[in-house]
């Protein structure tokens, strides 16, 4: 073996070790926990105008399973019993008659999982992208697709995402009360700060 070949092998070995080290570092920073989250649901009314129901009870964590396009395991969930429209009677109707949160585990939370960012590199991406996910709600599950704005703030990531939600996809009856109803599609807006798992912001 010539000394040149030996030197090449040493360099390849070093590069491999560095790559492994980098991968390990990436893996340690690729699990994220949600903090400071908020979910807002914009409900358009049949008579025009709309109202907003919101909750700050957004929890969960995700971990990177593929770099490009970025895919995440884990899930984010919102406690629907805390969804507040600002009016007591409307809250009772929303939670009780339509979301039926009293029916149990599959009804009192909305859970999104299998999150994928379209054609971006999860390690470095910052900006606007489309995303897909699987939403479990009201005892049913259906894919959702929307837009997300991702900004990096030090070691944290700030995410603002929105997607349309067709009530019929989740077997939710069209809300109606004394002649005023909610249209068949509502808009969901989610914002949160994701911090690397193990860190607290």
């Amino acid at each position, binding site marked *: 073996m010539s000394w040149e070949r030996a030197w090449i092998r040493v360099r390849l070995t070093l590069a491999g070790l560095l790559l492994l080290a980098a991968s390990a570092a990436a893996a340690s920073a690729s699990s994220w926990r949600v903090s400071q989250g908020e979910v807002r649901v914009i409900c358009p009314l049949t008579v*025009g*105008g*709309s109202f*907003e129901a919101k909750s700050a009870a957004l929890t969960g964590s995700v971990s990177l399973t593929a770099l490009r396009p970025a895919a995440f395991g884990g899930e984010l969930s919102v406690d629907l019993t805390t969804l507040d429209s*600002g*009016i*007591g009677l409307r809250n009772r109707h929303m939670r009780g008659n339509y979301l039926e949160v009293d029916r149990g585990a599959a009804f009192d939370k909305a859970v999104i999982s299998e999150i994928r960012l379209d054609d971006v590199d999860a390690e470095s991406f910052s900006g606007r992208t489309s995303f897909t996910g699987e939403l479990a709600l009201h005892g049913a599950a259906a894919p959702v697709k929307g837009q997300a704005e991702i900004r990096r703030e030090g070691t944290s990531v700030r995410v603002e995402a929105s997607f349309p939600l067709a009530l019929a996809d989740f077997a939710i009856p069209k809300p109606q009360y*004394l002649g*005023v109803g909610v249209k068949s599609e509502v808009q969901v807006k989610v914002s949160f700060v994701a911090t690397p798992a193990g860190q607290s912001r």
Partner: protein
Amino acid sequence: MSGRVCGVLAVAGLVLAASGADAEPIFLSRQYTRCITCHYSPTGGGLLTRYGRSLSREELSTTGRSQPGHPAGNEEGFLWGAFGKGLAPLQLGLDSRPAHLSVDFGGANIERNFFMNADLLAAYQVKGFTLYGEVGRRPLDEGSEIDSYEYWVAHQSQKGLGFRLGRFLPAYGIRVADHTALTRRSLSFDTRDQVYALELSQIWQRQQLQLSVGPGRADSILDDDGRQAFTATGRFQMDLSTRSVVVVSGLFRDASKRDPRSGAGGVAFGFAPTKRLSLWSEADALFKQGVPAGPSYALFGEAGFEAWRGVWLKFSPQLRTALGEESDGLERLVFELELFPRTHWNVDISYYRDRNRRSDRLTKTFLAQLHLYI
């Protein structure tokens, strides 16, 4: 003009300009940006829809709201729901306001107890059509009369296109609960200023457009008082969010036998930073042909704050300048307490402090109303 004459006019103005069921822009704080959610009239005021009645019970009254786990009943219905659903699709309402008025104009004082209004209101709604009418007793300078001030037929399509034909107050600016507000009365949108008109409207999710044209003020046509003039209005509302709106309005009145051609344009903004606070403002410029010195301006602001459930405090600064003379006109401050102890009735106590900008004369008005809405 003598102080006594000013006072008499102030009394007459407040007494004669009776109002029906109030429009309540304070509901912006509950994310209601459209009048038609609670009122049959797309310009607000008048008979409440079933939804509006429910909201008055569940969101306005201190003690009336239904309790979870208990039968809700029909307390908010006509005559406390005595007819059940037997009258549907007919909706009825009785609206009356016994009131006490006290006006202090520079030392002299006028006091009066009176019925501000006593009305029967009705709406029949089927297949997108609405037939609407109200009839009632209204006070005059001396005595009273039975009359109908609002009656119309309207249709609203599923796609949001609508029309209305008949006698009604045209859409302009914010229809605040106080019909004597300087942005209402100054522009002739007081409670007896309905027009005969055709209104076309389009409702989108975040916008609303209302256009009206007609032969003019209804009473002027019926009384042939020389003020009949072609009148057109336009109002465009944009919902910036579920708690903020901006409104742009325009008004054109052609010349009549007694008045020159006139018009107005204005912009209004409503914002509710919390579910207990609503803030409204409106600015209008009024033009009149033959007055080259410049327009007059009407400015209105109102802050409504729910201090306790069913207890609303309101403060409203207002200004009206004279045509072509911005240092002339009227400054007004209104302090108001509204109590909604139970569904179907509320108590409204208002204090008006009006300052004439030319003479510096102060007029202080105290108005207490018991509002019965059955």
